[in-house]
């Protein structure tokens, strides 16, 4: 529908800390940036009535999710004076302690970078068709519900 290039946000499995470090390094050539705000989601070893989560398996309706993320991205760029915005979300199994979401927002000043980053995290949790299946140590599972 749109001429705009749809960016992929999906990564198979966990998001590596080295990848995050490299993403940060790439911004040193952008000398109008004064502040970077990052949010990362990490899989918790949640206790659900005595059963412990050992992984979350993510699935998504990918085409719909990428199109929606693209709209959110455009709205965020319209709303805040930000310079860069990167979003990555895991698909497939991510173990406890590993990173499943990485949102990276940069601006000349700290306030727009922080506000935009926070708003993106809120919106992607409620608006992107992604589902998390919490897998317990006894191999049973339950579908994650966002608050």
């Amino acid at each position, binding site marked *: 529908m749109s001429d705009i290039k749809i960016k992929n946000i999906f990564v198979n499995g966990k998001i590596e800390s080295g990848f995050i470090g490299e993403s940060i390094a790439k911004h040193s050539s952008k000398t109008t940036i004064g502040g970077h705000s990052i949010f990362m989601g990490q899989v918790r070893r949640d206790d659900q009535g005595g059963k412990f989560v050992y992984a979350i398996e993510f699935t998504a*309706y990918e085409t719909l999710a990428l199109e929606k993320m693209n709209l959110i991205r455009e709205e965020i760029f319209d709303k805040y004076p930000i310079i860069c915005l990167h979003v990555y*979300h895991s698909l497939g199994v991510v173990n406890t302690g590993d990173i*499943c979401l990485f949102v990276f927002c940069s601006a000349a000043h700290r306030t727009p970078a922080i506000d935009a980053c926070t708003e993106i*995290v809120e919106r992607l*949790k409620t608006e992107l068709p992604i589902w998390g299946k919490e897998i317990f140590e006894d191999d049973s599972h339950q579908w994650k519900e966002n608050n």
Partner: protein
Amino acid sequence: MEIEIISFGKISEFIPRQKIDITGISDTDTLKVHLEKAFPQISTMKYKLALNEKLVQNNTLISGNEVVAIMPPFSGG
């Protein structure tokens, strides 16, 4: 008239991908009534539909041959 049904998350555990006959059904509101009869579990759940990769926000006409996605609440992040 046939549509293809796909499902996600918890709903994918009891509604596999399938084609269903929707003769006489011409919009998404009527389709919902039909789906809730065919798959009683979803009638007590929150869910959304997408028609041909577009989220259904308001009642939408169906011409047949669409792909309809049945989606429980999102839980990414």
